[in-house]
Structures are given as C-alpha cells and as structure tokens.
C-alpha cells in the first residue's frame, strides 16, 4: 500500500511549527563557523586579479614579465587575454597566485595591460526614443503588449493619472565576498571550497568551463556569508582559482574578491523606470493601464518587470526596453524584477487613489477582484495589517496638515512570489545504535535550512533534534538544488518528511513483533516507539533500533514525490509608517507591518527572521542603496561601504511580522518565504512618504536630496498655478 504523505495535523505536531533556536546559531555567534573566506589550507596560495579600469575596452597587450620574476609569485594566468572585449570596469584581466596576499597584490601592480577603449554607456536615466530604440545597439525592445481595449478604457475613465517612477541599479553587497579555494590533490581530482548558494550545481558549471569531468570535482561548503541570488552561478574567479591551482602544481589557491570589485562586478539588480498612465471611474473602479518602461541589467539585459504587478487590470498597453550598458552583471536579486514592478505599479495606483480622494486601503478593497487568484488572501491580510498598524484609525489624506516641519504618513503595497519546493533528495539512515544520520547536497544560506530539516526529522521520528546528525553542503551527498527562489525549505522539508516516514515504517516492521503489535499500530513519540492505543507497550528509541540487528535502514526521500507537501504562490501585504523632515529631507521609518502568507510554517522563528530580514533589506534599498555611476570614466563612484550605505540598526524602526498560517493556510503545505517580503517595502515606503508630504518622490532611494527636490518642484508648480 502506498504511503499517504501528509503533514501532521496541528495538534499532532511536536517540533514542526515550534519556536526552536537556529541549530547553527552557537557556532556562528561564537565565531567558530568556518566560511570559505576563513579557510586556510596547507601550502595555500593567494590570488588577486588585475582589474580593467575601463567600462568597455579591448585588451591589446599584456606584459606579465615583471610579476613573473617576483619572488613568491607562483602562477600567472590571463583571464581575458589579448583580443578579448571587456564589458564593465573592474573585470579581471590577469590573475596572479603568490605565497601570500601582499606578494599577490604587488604582483598585480607590476603587470602592465594596454587597452583599446571602446564607447561606453553606464547611465540609464534617458528615456529611450522608441523609434530609435528599435535600431540602436544600446537598446533592446523586451516587451510590447496590448490586452483588452486600453484606448476606449481611458476614454471611459473619469479620473486619469500620469506619472514617472523608478528604482536604481543596486548591488548585492554580500558581506562574504565571492570567491573560492581550489586544489588538485592529483591531476584527476579537483577539490573546491566555494562561497555559493549552489553546492550541487557548481561542479557541472566548473567542469564545463575547464573541460574536466564534473564527477571528479568535489565541492564543499559549510557556511556562506550571504548570496541573495548573486552566488547561484559560477564566477570567472571560481574558474581562475581552479586554473591557477593547476598551474601551481595543485596547491590550494584562494581567490576572494576585495570589497570594491565585489560591489562593481559581483552582481546587481537592474534598474526600472517608467512613465505610467492609469485610469479609473469616480467610484474607484480601476479600468486602464498604460506604461512605457525601461531599465538596465547591463549587457546581459535584466528581463522585464512584470507590470502591472499583481493587478489584472482589464485593459493594458505596455512596452519595455532594456538599456544595454556597461554597468556590471545583473543577477538574480531576491525576488528578481518584483520589487521594481511593485514600485512601478503600487506607486501610480496610490497616486490615482489620492486623485480620487480615496484611502488607498479602500481603493485596493474596491478592486479586490482584480487581485485574482489571491483576492481572498490579500483581503484577509489587509484587515490583519490594518489592526497591527492602526491604519483605518490613523490614515489621513495626502499631505500631513499638522504644524511643524516633520510630517507623518502611511503607505501600503502588495506582493506575491512562487516559492514551491525545488527538486530535493535526501538519504536518511537509522543505525542499530539509535543514531540517525541525514545526508543532503543542499546548503544553509542563512535561511535556517539545517534547523528546518532537523525539525521535520525530529517531529517524524519522535527523537530530539540534537540526536540527529545532519550532513549538508557537499556535492558527494544526495543531489539537491540551488538555494534560489525561496525553494529550499519546501524542497528539503518535503524530501526529509518522506524519508523519515519511510524509515520509521521500516523500523516499525522490525519492532512490531517485540511489542506484540502490527506495524500500523505503532507510533514514534517522546523518544519511544510505542503502541498508539497503549503507551505502556513501548520501547525506548535505542531499544527499538537495536531490533535492527546488524543492518541499518536507509530511506531515500525526494521532492517532488507522492503527496502534495509544498505549494506556491503566496500573497503579502506591507504597511509603512514614516516621518519626513521637510527641512532636511530625511525620511525616518517609524514602523513597518509585514503580513505574509506562507502556507505551513516549519520553523516560525527562522521564518519570521526571513520576513524581518526582507523588510529591513527593503528599508535599505528604499532609503539608501544606489549604484552611482560616472559616465565620463565609466566607473562606479560609491564602491565602498561608506558611500554604498546599507541600513543600520537605528534605521529600521519598529517592525511587526504576522505570518498567515493555521487553518486555511496550512493545508497548502510548505511555501518559501525569503523573497516575497522584500518586494513591498519600496512601494509601501514611497507611498508613505507621499502621504506624509503630499507629493510623490518619484525615484528610489528616497534620499534627502530627492525629497527636497520633490518638495521644491511642487512648491514652484504651486506658485505658478
């Protein structure tokens, strides 16, 4: 008979859904956790690269002779050899491995590279002229789409709003920079420690790059210091370290980026700018959408923000153009394209609501059917958020009319994300001595993967979490997937639930005779295997496992598999309460509320941390983050952590998280939660600022300069009118 895999009912859960501490918390907070950057291998060499100073150039000459003669320099490797085209400043041209870092840096300085400079573009403000865009090499038309009848819908609209909105290019700024340590124990084997979100996929990517069988590449990682999407793929530095090591006779070569190249070249979120026109009836019924948007994801393009975001506006016309420029590589950045789309949608709709003299909350409720298929979820979430923020009691029409320079305002936004569990595999072994071992090729990127796995296994086998030996972060364990798209917790939870259930059933079959019962009568709970109907007939876990004799049980679990244990498609609502000093332009977050649908929650403490972290990231990109480029030199002007500022402890205000779980939500199974809550803050905070000061600050981040500029513009237009 096939096993019916179904998450236990709420009253049957012993560890799933409980507030457990992060299992790798102690090793991290005591400084004992070893990240790739921390490892020192015997006879290790240190590598650094010669960086191209130009945004667009061709390499014409490389002279490495001086570096090669320097004592301590072991290997020199051209990465972008003569003739190669470079597409952004900071790209590595030559890499050097030396006995220590100072020597490697000296050698880098001794290498002379000559370039032919090519024309570059690093800006993206200018609106592409569509007739030109179709011919220009700097523009790629990514989308042209019409649905319904926007022309007549705008004619029927009683209120129409038009505006300009945008978000800049931002960088990932992982605290542990990108990099790896490669070594060849012999010419047939390559061993790589790498800072990655994708332990399972690196071997194939690297094997392809160096023409070497992936099966002979061993990849290992215990901890990663942030990725956020930028560490899903292999980097040129990962390839270079492997090649340098080979040149150096197999010695380990550590190649980690410095902060500056990390910010310049290790990944960014594309910008998005748009002229948007929206139309509605006087009663608030949303009828029509028109947008012309553009943005840059560098030479590779950055896709197209899905606008109008979450709203099924019945009549739409939209075009999107990718600005092909030399700003650096765009990479997945927590909820790719969604934060931009949310700003480009929720801000114009908030402005439309203001023009309709409606509370945005009421505007959303009025049009709730257009939020299909999540209308019900959004509606419930709005009510929860209203209570937590006191929105209805405190909301005021646009422009805080109270005296004094500091104005207060409220803003809201909605978001969605997929988050279905990825393909995941686990081997779970119960040994005759009672020990339990779980092996998986997945990784813990800070989401609490280890904790969630142990909570599921502990709950299923009825033994404490610390009795389970968990091994992850290695491509020699059962194949898992990359940690991207909020797919990890769903994937690993589901795979381990199946494996633990199967292993438990096999154990029950061995133990049943000793308890004079049928296997189906048994349960594993409280560290015992017992007859469900008679708890006095029981064996301790250890005694039960001893019945296995000499043979351990290994069960393989996989996601997807039987039983729908994970799902996708969450909804979330966020509200922001801000104060804006109209004399200085400084925006302060007073409070943010995040209401998040996420299905069944395995580990509430870590799930809340994910939502809080996403909201804080959102505050950070809303108020501070922007990759500032200089068109003349083609370089990034703020490639350090004082000018590329992240939000600090004092910048985040009061944060309230509410997870929509329990009846009506749990039944959907586990759904990933990392990405969605980082989507709404940009729009929610921008809307709150507009509500406070009465005018829209059209572009993120909402810096003092931009706030003052918007106020001055409104003032001078008011004076003219």
């Amino acid at each position, binding site marked *: 008979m096939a096993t019916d895999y179904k998450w236990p009912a709420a009253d049957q859960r012993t560890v799933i859904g409980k507030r457990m501490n992060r299992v790798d918390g102690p090793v991290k907070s005591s400084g004992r956790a070893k990240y790739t*950057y921390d490892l020192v291998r015997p006879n290790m060499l240190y590598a650094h690269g010669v960086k191209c100073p130009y945004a667009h150039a061709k390499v014409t000459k490389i002279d490495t002779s001086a570096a090669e003669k320097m004592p301590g320099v072991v290997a020199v490797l051209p990465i972008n050899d003569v003739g190669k085209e470079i597409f952004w400043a900071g790209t590595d041209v030559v890499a050097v491995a030396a006995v220590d870092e100072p020597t490697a840096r000296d050698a880098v300085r001794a290498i002379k590279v000559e370039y032919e400079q090519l024309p570059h573009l690093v800006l993206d403000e200018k609106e592409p002229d569509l007739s030109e865009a179709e011919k220009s090499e700097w523009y790629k038309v990514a989308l042209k789409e019409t649905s319904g009848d926007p022309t007549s819908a705008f004619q029927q609209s009683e209120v129409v709003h038009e505006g300009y909105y945008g978000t800049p290019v931002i960088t990932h700024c992982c605290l542990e920079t990108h990099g790896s340590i490669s070594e060849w124990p012999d010419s047939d084997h390559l061993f790589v420690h790498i800072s990655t979100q994708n332990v399972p996929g690196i071997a194939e990517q690297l094997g392809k790059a160096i023409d070497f069988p992936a099966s002979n590449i061993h990849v290992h990682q215990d901890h990663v210091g942030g990725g956020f999407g930028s560490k899903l793929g292999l980097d040129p530095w990962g390839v270079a370290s492997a090649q340098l090591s080979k040149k150096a006779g197999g010695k380990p070569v550590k190649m980690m980026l410095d902060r500056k190249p990390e910010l310049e070249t290790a990944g960014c979120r594309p910008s998005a700018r748009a002229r948007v026109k929206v139309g509605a009836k006087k009663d608030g019924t949303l009828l029509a959408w028109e947008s012309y948007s553009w943005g840059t994801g560098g030479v590779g393009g950055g896709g197209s923000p899905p606008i109008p975001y979450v709203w099924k506006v019945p009549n739409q016309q939209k075009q999107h153009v990718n600005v092909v420029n030399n700003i650096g590589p765009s990479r997945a950045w927590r909820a790719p394209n969604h934060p931009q789309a949310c700003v480009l949608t929720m801000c114009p709709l908030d402005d439309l609501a203001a023009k309709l003299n409606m509370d945005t909350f009421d505007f959303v409720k009025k049009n709730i059917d257009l939020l299909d298929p999540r209308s019900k979820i959004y509606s419930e979430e709005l009510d929860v958020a209203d209570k937590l923020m006191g929105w209805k009691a405190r909301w005021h029409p646009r422009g805080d009319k109270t005296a004094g320079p500091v104005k207060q305002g409220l803003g809201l936004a909605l978001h969605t994300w997929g988050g279905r569990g990825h393909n995941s595999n686990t081997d779970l072994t119960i040994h005759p001595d009672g020990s339990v071992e779980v092996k998986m090729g997945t990784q813990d990127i800070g989401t609490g993967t280890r904790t969630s796995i142990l909570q599921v296994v502990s709950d299923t086998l009825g033994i404490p979490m610390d009795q389970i030996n968990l091994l992850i972060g290695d491509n020699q364990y059962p194949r898992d997937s990359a940690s991207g798209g909020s797919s990890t917790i769903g994937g690993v939870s589901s795979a381990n639930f199946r494996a633990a259930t199967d292993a438990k059933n096999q154990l029950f079959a061995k133990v049943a005779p000793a308890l004079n019962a049928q296997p189906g009568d048994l349960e594993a709970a409280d560290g015992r295997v017992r007859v469900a109907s008679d708890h006095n007939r029981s064996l301790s876990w250890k005694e039960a496992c001893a019945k296995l004799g000499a043979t351990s049980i290994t069960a393989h679990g996989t996601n997807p598999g039987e039983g729908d244990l994970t799902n996708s498609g969450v909804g979330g609502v966020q509200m922001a309460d801000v104060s804006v000093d109209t004399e200085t332009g400084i925006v302060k977050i007073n409070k943010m509320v995040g209401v998040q649908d996420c299905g069944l929650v395995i580990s509430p403490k870590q799930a809340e941390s994910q939502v809080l972290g996403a909201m804080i990231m959102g505050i950070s990109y809303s108020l501070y983050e922007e990759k500032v480029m200089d068109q003349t030199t083609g370089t990034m002007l703020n490639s350090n952590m004082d000018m590329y500022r992240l939000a600090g402890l004092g910048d*985040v205000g009061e944060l309230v998280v509410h997870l929509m779980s329990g009846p009506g939500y749990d039944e959907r199974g586990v759904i990933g939660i990392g990405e969605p809550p980082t989507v709404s803050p940009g729009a929610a905070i921008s809307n709150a600022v507009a509500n406070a000061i009465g005018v829209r600050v059209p572009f993120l981040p909402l810096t003092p300069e931009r706030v003052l500029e918007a106020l001055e513009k409104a003032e001078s237009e008011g004076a003219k009118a």
Partner: protein
Amino acid sequence: MSDQEDVKGPGISRRSFLKISALTTSAPLVLGPTVLEVEGQEVHVYGPGKTPVTLNVNGRRLSANLEPRVTLLDALREKFEVTGPKRVCDRGLCGACTVMMDNKAVYACSVLAIDAQGKQIVTTDGLAPEGKLHPVSAAFVDNDAQQCGFCTPGFVMATKAFLDKHPNATKEDLHRGLGGNFCRCGTYAGIKGAVAQLSGGGQQKGGA
C-alpha cells in the same frame, strides 16, 4: 555614533605607515625596527621585508614573521587561523572585524599587526571556552539575531565592548553604540531583541 574607537597615540596608522614607507624602500633588508622621526615624533620603523611579530590573542602568544604592512585582521585570519573577525570592507566601515584590544573595541582591519604587539587582543573565538557560549553570543542565538552569520562575530564583540564600558546602557544607547556595524541579511530585529535581553542586566531568561 559608533562605539568603535580610533587607535590613537604613539602607534602608526595604516596611512602614516604608507607615507613613511616610501622613505625606506631603498633601505637594506633588516629585521627589527629602525627609529625615524615622523611629524615631530619618534617612531619605530619595521621592514621592509618580514619582521618577527608576536601577538597575545585570546590569552595565547602567537608568533609569525610578517611584513609590516600586514593588518591585525589579516595576521589573525591568515597566519593564526583566528577567523571570528571577518574581512568585509577592509576599510574600517562595517564593523565585521571588531575585536577588543586592551578592552577597547577596534576594527582589526585598521590596526597594523606590528602595532598590536604587547596588547591583549580578544576575538569572538576567545570569549568563551569551546563548547560554552558567552552570554552575549547566547543572547544572539536566543533571539535569532543572525542569518548568514557573517556579521555576527563583529556584532557580538561590539556589543560586549559597549556593555563592558557602559554597564548601565539603555537599549537606545546600545542601538547607537552598534551603529558602526552592518548586516546584509537584515537581522537587526533579532539584534534588538538580544540587546533588550542583555541590557536587562543579563538576568533575563532566553528570548522567545
């Protein structure tokens, strides 16, 4: 305001070392310091080339031959494998490498290893014996004040140093005191929880 204090006094900062190093590049390779006058003050000049350096780290004496330009952070991490302090910005801007030097919080990336000689250096790794957690580290765990965890050791040291110096600090004081440390995952809510637990005199039980 940050609680991180600049290392001032008779030492050589990274910047002034770079200034005088130009004067000595043609000097013969010597071990041990030469005495120079820089900006009206006598300073010991080490190098060029490697010079013996002995550090007192977490109660252990650690020695290595290092170039004088090597920072305390790099010496700790690469020579002595004390990797609690992380290299993140490497320019005294983010707090990830915070250690205590003679009971003061310093950015290890902004102190030269040769200048840290004779001082008591404590890193997160040395706060509690293996297998035990220091109350500050424990508060971070209880409040899930970490995600990827890369900034955590620096935050723990900054918190410890601030509380040592300001035992009666309020939560608000601590929020200001930790303003020089940055986290990318967004763990500030958890850190605030840890701070609330600690600023209650360490008497409170673990967080929710």
